[in-house]
């Protein structure tokens, strides 16, 4: 059995409705995962991300749409023939088998000899740092160890797709970050095309090559992690990633400035004419002496200052608009002080409807 080359996964307009009259769990999801890429399906609980993963695994059938691997449709293929190994939120080890038998399970089911499956199971246990635990029973292992074993059990079959359904969410914080690094490491080593479902934005940012943000059964944005901070597509996306600064305005035209209650702002990005919401990361806001050079500035009052160790978070009030700014801790502005605020043109980002 030679390991299959990693595959290109494509979801085309996939929808699923659990019952007639029910709100669809997925609405026309389209997504391409390149060979060897790790994509995080990110969204709040109930958004349809696990549904999408189960459709790829074959455990659910979509109401409409296509699932393709390397251009071939998977829809008629039963889960056991898809070569898509899945790791679930719970480890779900087979309780009546030893750790090694658990890991070797997929190979034995494909007809591998006892000796071969045993050797490759031991090798896979080594990849997840669980060497020497092969003779144990699953209930003798801790939760984190069990999840490592279940990862090894998926890897040993050399799947063309690795599907991870919130595998870290049941673990406590320390274990979670250690296992997160391990997942990334084995994924890169094996070059598996991987879909990782999570509701944890930080986990998605750290792990993924690209993030697919899904809410209400639909794809809201699909891009590299950095883009979710710098160029969020909509206000919903920006808010999901913790953005707090929103300024309503009206654009005069693609190159024209944006009129807002705080003043007239120029942007480095073209903005179509009409109503628009601008956003800016708190770290990009300039205050006081930092804000001397030129336009995009206005005067605001410091209404709150919170010391956070590595930075100070200020709340600024200008008319009805309140903004957050994060500055290095050596800048000291007092609550009640009036200060000049500058929003650099290259950091202001127009949100789509």
């Amino acid at each position, binding site marked *: 059995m030679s390991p299959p080359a990693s595959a290109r996964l494509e979801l085309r307009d996939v929808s699923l409705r659990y019952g007639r009259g029910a709100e669809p769990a997925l609405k026309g999801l389209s997504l391409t995962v390149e060979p060897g890429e790790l994509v995080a399906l990110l969204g709040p609980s109930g958004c349809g991300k696990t549904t999408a993963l189960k459709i790829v695994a074959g455990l659910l059938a979509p109401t409409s749409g296509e699932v393709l691997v390397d251009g071939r449709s998977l829809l008629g293929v039963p889960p056991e023939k898809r070569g*898509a190994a899945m790791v679930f939120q719970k480890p779900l080890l087979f309780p009546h088998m030893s750790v090694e038998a658990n890991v070797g399970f997929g190979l034995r089911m494909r007809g591998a000899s006892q000796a071969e499956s045993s050797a490759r199971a031991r090798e896979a246990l080594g990849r997840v740092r669980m060497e020497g635990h092969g003779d144990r029973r699953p209930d003798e292992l801790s939760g984190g160890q069990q999840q490592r074993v279940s990862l090894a059990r998926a890897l040993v079959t050399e799947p063309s797709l690795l599907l991870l359904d919130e595998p870290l969410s049941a673990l406590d914080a320390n274990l979670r970050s250690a296992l997160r690094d391990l997942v990334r490491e084995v994924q890169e080593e094996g070059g598996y095309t991987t879909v990782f479902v999570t509701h944890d934005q930080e986990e998605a940012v750290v792990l993924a090559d690209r993030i697919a943000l899904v809410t209400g059964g639909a794809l809201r944005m699909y891009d590299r992690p950095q883009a979710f901070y710098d160029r969020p597509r909509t206000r919903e996306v920006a808010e999901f990633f913790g953005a707090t600064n929103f300024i309503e305005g009206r654009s005069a035209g693609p190159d024209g400035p944006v009129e807002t209650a705080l003043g007239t702002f120029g942007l480095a990005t073209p903005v179509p004419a009409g109503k628009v919401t601008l956003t800016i990361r708190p770290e990009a806001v300039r205050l006081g002496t930092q804000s001397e050079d030129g336009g995009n500035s206005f005067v605001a009052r410091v209404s709150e200052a919170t010391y956070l160790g590595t930075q100070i978070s200020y709340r600024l009030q200008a008319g009805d608009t309140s903004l957050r700014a994060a500055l290095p801790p050596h800048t000291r502005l007092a609550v009640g002080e009036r200060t000049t605020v500058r929003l650099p043109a290259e950091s202001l980002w127009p949100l789509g409807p």
Partner: protein
Amino acid sequence: MVGGVFSRFKIPLLLAPALLVLGGLFAGGLYAALVQSLGYFPAIGMTEVSLDAYREVLGSRRFLDSLLLTFYVAGVSTVLATVLAVLAALALRRSPSRISSVIFQVPITVPHLVAAVGIALVVSQTGLGARLAASLGLIGEPAEFPALLYDRYSVGIILTYVWKEMPFVALVVLAGLRGVAGELEEVARTLGASAWQRFWYVVFPVISPGIVAASLIVFAFTFGAFEVPFLLGRSYPTILPVMAYDEYRSVELTDRPAAMAINVLITLVTALTAALYLRLSRRIGGRRGSS
């Protein structure tokens, strides 16, 4: 302080009334039976403790025939009920739970007596089955219908037990299938296991402790139950509880120790089965608890 004492004894205190009824009636009855089986029956002047009753009972042909029949009826009923229950549970595992609860829970609410009478009405030589077979031309006369009541093979008794106990086993198995066994099966599926491999290597080993536990309960019950064989069984050999009852009803009060010895022996087999069940369920519970 008082609150502390109360909270420490709260559970025993709350359990006490139930335990008193259960323990008083059960232990008291068992004690009386044990004493009388040992030949201590002062009411008729028997005060010498001996194992004579056991010797007499164990040595009699009638007891051995009864014992074999009881094992046969309990064993066959248990195996049939269990096999049918597992098949039914597998068939219904993906159906809505509304359907399976109607199918399985209704027979559980019907008393054994009613079930026995119902079965009798269907399978007796003058019953529904015989007349149906005759009118379909399968047999010439209803009386040619095979004797399934008061017969050599205790078909009527076994049918009643299968009808009554199968749903109980099925509900236990169904709960297992819909719980962790179902999730483990999905895992096995994504790891490439075929339908048969998933059943044989994952689902069956996972649900089998539940199957064994449920069938032990059925065995213990059918081994010690009285009313169905009393209604539908032959007069010789009878199953043990019926034999004990006959001895008990004997005009000769000196037969009483023998009746009680039979009861004690029935209790012993049932208790052994229960002990087996407890050991098994503790093993399952321990596994579940630590994972």
